[in-house]
């Protein structure tokens, strides 16, 4: 009697709990968690592979020389390790890319978010994204074989020099970041509340005025994020830069009409050359890679900040 009542009590409490400890269930969730941490390990591996060779590198090259000298000639006789020329190369590419991509990207974004009917916008956006999805080898070859000669025919008075051109490389990189800038800016402008627009219309403002003085300023943090993300993407672009800007001189150059060596192109070029592992020349790959990584990390962090800001305001 007492034992049976005890059982029934136990049964009733048991029914509120799980039937079993569900070890399988816990194992699966643990496995999923472990899988998710792989991406963290990937980041750690990136940081280690970039920064581990650096103490060795900077024991032979002084940091001051690395950041201030104006000649970058690893592998040459009397090699100099001043990273500035290739940093300037990268920054020039970014500047030209933004000069092309900001007007084209923002123009497309304003058209899509403010002017185009929903149907048109829905068709245009994926088509525009094709530009970003094209393999960069294709875009680079097009820029080298067609765009560069075409621009030379169009502007024959410009001082073109050799087959490579930093400016054209920047323009080509600019083309592939147009969809990114357009997409982020379009999202930012469409998240501006309708009420702001309609208030302005009610006061008699024209569409142009509403767009430029209401929507654009209200979406500015998202638009800045779009531009910074575009710049970050341009910093990291390799194949187009390698194909179109080629290999520049080891010295500082600000001439967009000749080739230049950018950071990504230097890394790709060095890694494909025949150099012995463990030499100081080989370690330049990691030093330049680390700098590149830090540059994109910084720009991405800035972009994320700006994105968060516009989300906060209107969500």
């Amino acid at each position, binding site marked *: 009697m007492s034992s049976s009542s005890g059982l029934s009590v136990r049964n009733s409490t048991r029914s509120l709990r799980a039937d079993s400890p569900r070890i399988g269930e816990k194992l699966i*969730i643990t496995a999923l968690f472990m899988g998710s941490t792989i991406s963290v390990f990937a980041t750690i591996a990136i940081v280690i592979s970039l920064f581990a060779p650096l103490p060795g590198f900077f024991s032979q090259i002084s940091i001051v020389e690395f950041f201030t000298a104006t000649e970058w000639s690893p592998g040459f006789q009397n090699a100099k390790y001043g990273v500035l020329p290739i940093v300037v190369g990268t920054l020039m590419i970014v500047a030209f890319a933004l000069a092309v991509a900001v007007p084209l990207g923002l123009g497309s974004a304003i*058209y899509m978010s403010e002017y185009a009917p929903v149907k048109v916008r829905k068709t245009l956006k994926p088509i525009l994204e094709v530009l970003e999805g*094209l393999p960069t080898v294709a875009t680079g070859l097009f820029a080298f074989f067609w765009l560069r000669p075409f621009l030379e025919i169009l502007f024959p008075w410009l001082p073109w020099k050799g087959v490579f051109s930093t400016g054209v490389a920047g323009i080509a990189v600019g*083309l592939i970041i147009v969809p990114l800038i357009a997409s982020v800016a379009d999202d930012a402008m469409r998240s501006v509340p309708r009420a702001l627009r309609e208030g302005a219309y009610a006061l008699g403002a024209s569409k142009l005025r509403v767009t430029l003085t209401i929507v654009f300023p209200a979406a500015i943090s998202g638009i800045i994020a779009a531009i910074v993300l575009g710049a970050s993407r341009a910093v990291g672009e390799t194949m187009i830069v390698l194909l179109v800007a080629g290999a520049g001189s080891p010295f500082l150059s600000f001439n967009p009409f000749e080739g230049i060596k950018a950071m990504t192109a230097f890394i790709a070029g060095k*890694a494909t050359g025949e150099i012995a592992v463990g030499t100081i020349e080989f370690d330049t*790959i990691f030093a330049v*890679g680390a700098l590149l990584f830090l540059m*994109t990390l910084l720009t991405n962090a800035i972009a994320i900040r700006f994105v968060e800001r516009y989300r906060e305001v209107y969500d």
Partner: protein
Amino acid sequence: MAIGNNVAVTAAGAMVNSRFKKTAGSGQAASIAFMTALILALTIALGAIIAIIAWAVVEGHTRLDWDLIFNGPSTARRATAGYSVAIAGTIQIIAGVILVIVPLGVGTSVYLELFADKSKWWNRIIELNIQNLAGVPSIVFGILGLAIFVRFFDLGFVVAAGSLTIAILVLPTVILASREAIKAVPSSILEGSLALGVTPWQAVWKQVLPAAGPGLLTGVILAVARAIGEAAPLLLVGAVTFVTTYPEFFEGGYSALPVLIYNYAGRAQMEFQVLAAAGVILMLAVLFVINSFAVWLRARYERSW
């Protein structure tokens, strides 16, 4: 007084009129100019796509033959050289990529969307980390592959190293797309099945994942499309050698389609430049098929809950 009033009224009226007309008139012209500029921007961007495709077709169409697919690279027989070895390399790379990203990408998204407690710092770190990983330049993944897969794990310059490198590169893309697909499944599906007494994992496996299936597949397909076109990281993990033999996954030099295109394009002979353009056509055709499939899949299985 009355006259003064009249004057004032007329003056004000004239001023308003002139103002209004002026802004209306010039506003209209400005509006038209502005809209023209916007459409021009869009046209240039879309024109660039057409120009790139046109370049490949115009320069490369003469080499669209079976040799392009079935012949290997050769410096001796330039007119009939092709991409067979590189195609084999790319197929093996993609197979490895799929093997890695499907479990890892989907698993991570399931964990983050359905199981992770967002208030725990380690889960927030995982999220933040994926966001940052998505912004790391592809060439840096090449350095990772070189240092970790080629050297540390001592795989050497083989397909496996290239495949793992590309897999990690596209992993954030897959995770972001998979999370969207899982998010699109209404929570009532999950809650309904939980209410019927199944375990959380049974609800996820039997209800949420099948419902999110087409979206998950689309994400994987788009990641594969991106992986096919990636060349930069492969330059660092050994895909550059001018190999003429088919690769094995863990052994032997290899090449990949975009890398061999780059290699051909850098050669002086005209035949190779035509071959590079023909290779671009081939790659674009493959990407077109893949992307069309993804679009079709999305349209066919898109459900509104």
